[in-house]
């Protein structure tokens, strides 16, 4: 076994920088980097640590933990399969940005200290912004700037929190943190911003659907699930996460029900699914934490699969609204079938991955006799089928006949979707290998007669509700207001008023300055001073030169005397 000294995440980040060298190099890197990364993640034993002294701190750029390995594995796998999905259609900028983004997410999962974590955290924000950017249209550019703003704000909270925590405790170690003071709460808030927690949940549905077809596939995987990972390590059992998670679950369902854009429906359902994980982390028992980790793993796969299927539709039709789509199963049967498998998995249908992972969270709520939480989770499970499980495939592939007859998705897209669809079913039918790499030993048995019957009743009657309520679900050409109204309309309007005032002020002072300047100039030209040489050569250049000489002189005097 080779000694692991180089952070595997950094391998992806640096490798991504070589992607613009040529299409062949790029395509080779797309396949080689994630495989190498996977190899390195598993080449070192658990609790393997590499330290690096830095400004009086012992950094731990690599610390292998079971949870970290789990998340790093799915992130690398996502980069690989996402790469297959994207490599023929996406731009090199997007692919390089996506790989740097994936690499920094892997970096976070293997970080042993808060400084390393923070650095990778910020690289992630830049990488993901570039992914949105590479869609190269106006809406994407503006959305990416709003997205970046939210994440820089989250990063700021995190940085202040980390600084406060280090001052208080003297430790930079990334481990379970007690919520003792405002510093730890700020760290928690920084993590939660990336998880899509309230009040800043709107950025997911605002930014992700503006990316290219493949861009939103990459985006769906890393940021929110890295946040789940950090919460899992730092704040297991923090009760505040239970109400936050449950809010996210229902926020996602309600907003997705109101939405018309197919990828925005899926973006809202990311918040919904991450809500389940956050609730599980708040519950904090071994089974709940296992459930949260396993659900994150399964979620990345089926959510990517759903967005791949939506991306293929967008790529072939150029349409993104449910009102424009419908009847596509006739000419895109494979995309429809694979998308439906993803939709069943997100709904936790028996024999798909969601069934064996999400149920651990609900089970631990029952075990702790948290009756309200359990009832909320049961209703939410039905709601997932409603807002994503049926709504997405129904409106995109069935519904009315839109008249469009687009060709089937390109082969590389189908291959990527097939790989993830096989994993969705594979994990569902045979969960043992996934259970084996969870943070704690699993004693949970998902396939009991009672569980199967309960889940079938819950989901199928949710399906009945969907078709009974269909007239009320008619899609409209609308968007829904969210917290982002405050920074898109309210601040903007306020900003415009401020800008107008500043502009008026600027005009007054400028004209004033111009007048007094002209008066000064004419007075100066009339005076005898203007005859001197230095003053005659008016250009600013000479002034800069003289200032440079004077400052240089100071420097020399300061250094040598």
């Amino acid at each position, binding site marked *: 076994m080779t000694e692991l000294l180089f952070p595997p995440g950094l391998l992806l980040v640096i490798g991504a920088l070589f992607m613009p060298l040529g299409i062949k190099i790029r395509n080779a890197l797309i396949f080689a980097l994630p495989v190498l990364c996977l190899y390195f993640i598993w080449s070192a034993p658990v609790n393997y640590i590499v330290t690096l002294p830095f400004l009086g701190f012992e950094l731990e750029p690599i610390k292998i933990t079971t949870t970290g390995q789990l998340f790093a594995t799915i992130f690398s796998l996502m980069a690989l399969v996402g790469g297959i999905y994207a490599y023929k259609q996406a731009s090199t900028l997007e692919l390089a940005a996506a790989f740097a983004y994936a690499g920094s997410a892997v970096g976070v999962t293997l970080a042993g200290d808060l400084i390393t974590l923070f650095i990778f955290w910020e690289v992630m924000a830049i990488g993901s912004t570039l992914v949105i950017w590479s869609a190269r249209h106006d809406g994407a550019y503006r959305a990416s700037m709003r997205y970046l703003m939210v994440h820089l704000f989250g990063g700021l909270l995190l940085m202040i929190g980390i600084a406060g925590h280090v001052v208080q405790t003297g430790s930079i170690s990334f481990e379970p943190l007690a919520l003792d003071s405002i510093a730890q709460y700020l760290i928690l808030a920084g993590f939660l911003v990336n998880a899509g927690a309230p009040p800043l949940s709107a950025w997911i549905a605002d930014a992700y659907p503006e990316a290219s077809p493949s861009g939103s596939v990459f985006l769906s995987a890393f940021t929110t699930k890295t946040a789940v990972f950090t919460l899992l390590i730092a704040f297991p059992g923090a009760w505040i996460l239970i109400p936050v998670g449950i809010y996210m679950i*229902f926020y996602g*369902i*309600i907003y997705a*029900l*109101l939405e*018309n854009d197919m990828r925005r429906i899926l973006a809202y359902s990311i918040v919904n699914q991450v809500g389940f994980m956050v609730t599980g982390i708040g519950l904090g028992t071994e089974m709940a934490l296992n459930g949260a980790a396993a659900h994150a793993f399964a979620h990345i796969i089926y959510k990517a699969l759903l967005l791949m299927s939506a991306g293929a539709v967008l790529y072939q039709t150029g349409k993104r609204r449910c009102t424009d789509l419908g*009847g596509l*199963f*006739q000419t895109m049967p494979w995309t429809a079938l694979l998308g439906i498998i993803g939709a069943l998995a997100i709904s936790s249908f028996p024999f798909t991955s969601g069934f064996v992972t999400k149920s651990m969270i609900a089970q631990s709520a*029952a075990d702790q*006799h948290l*009756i309200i939480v*359990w009832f909320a989770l*049961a*209703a939410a499970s*039905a*709601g997932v089928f*409603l*807002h994503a499980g049926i709504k997405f495939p129904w409106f995109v592939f*069935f519904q009315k*006949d839109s008249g469009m007859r687009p060709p089937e998705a390109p082969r590389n897209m189908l291959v990527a979707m097939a790989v993830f669809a096989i994993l969705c079913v594979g994990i569902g039918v045979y969960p043992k290998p996934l259970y084996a790499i969870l943070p704690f030993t699993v004693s949970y048995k998902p396939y009991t*007669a*009672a569980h199967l*019957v*309960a*889940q*079938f*009743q*819950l*989901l*199928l*009657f*949710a*399906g*009945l*509700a*969907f078709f*009974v*309520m269909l007239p*009320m*679900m008619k899609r*409209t*050409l*609308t*968007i*829904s*207001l*969210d917290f982002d109204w405050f920074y*898109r*309309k309210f601040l903007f309007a306020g900003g415009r008023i401020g800008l107008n005032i500043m502009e008026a002020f600027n005009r007054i002072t400028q004209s004033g300055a111009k007048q007094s300047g002209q008066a000064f100039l004419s007075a100066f030209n009339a005076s005898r001073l203007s005859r001197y040489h230095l003053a005659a050569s008016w250009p600013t250049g000479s002034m800069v030169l003289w200032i440079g000489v004077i400052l240089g002189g100071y420097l020399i005097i300061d250094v040598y005397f």
Partner: protein
Amino acid sequence: MSELDKHWLLRKENIRKLWIGFIVILALTVIAGLFVHQHESFGIEDSFGFFAWYGFITCVGMVVFAKLLGIFLKRPENYYDDESSTSLNKSGAEHD
């Protein structure tokens, strides 16, 4: 388009058959519930067809709640667009 030109899944008689099949499956899941014992330890979850009616009612509730919330939250698609572009597609703003 006549009925025969349509994809088999879109023909009226087949949609009827699908509905019948669906209702049969729904009934089977409820009947199957009589033979298993739910043990989440709250009591109510073991009552007759609990997950069936609970799933149905909560979903109807969520759809209705979303619909009501939509009255306050829904805006035309170009609500956030710049003033220049809103003036261009003002006609689109009237959709609901």
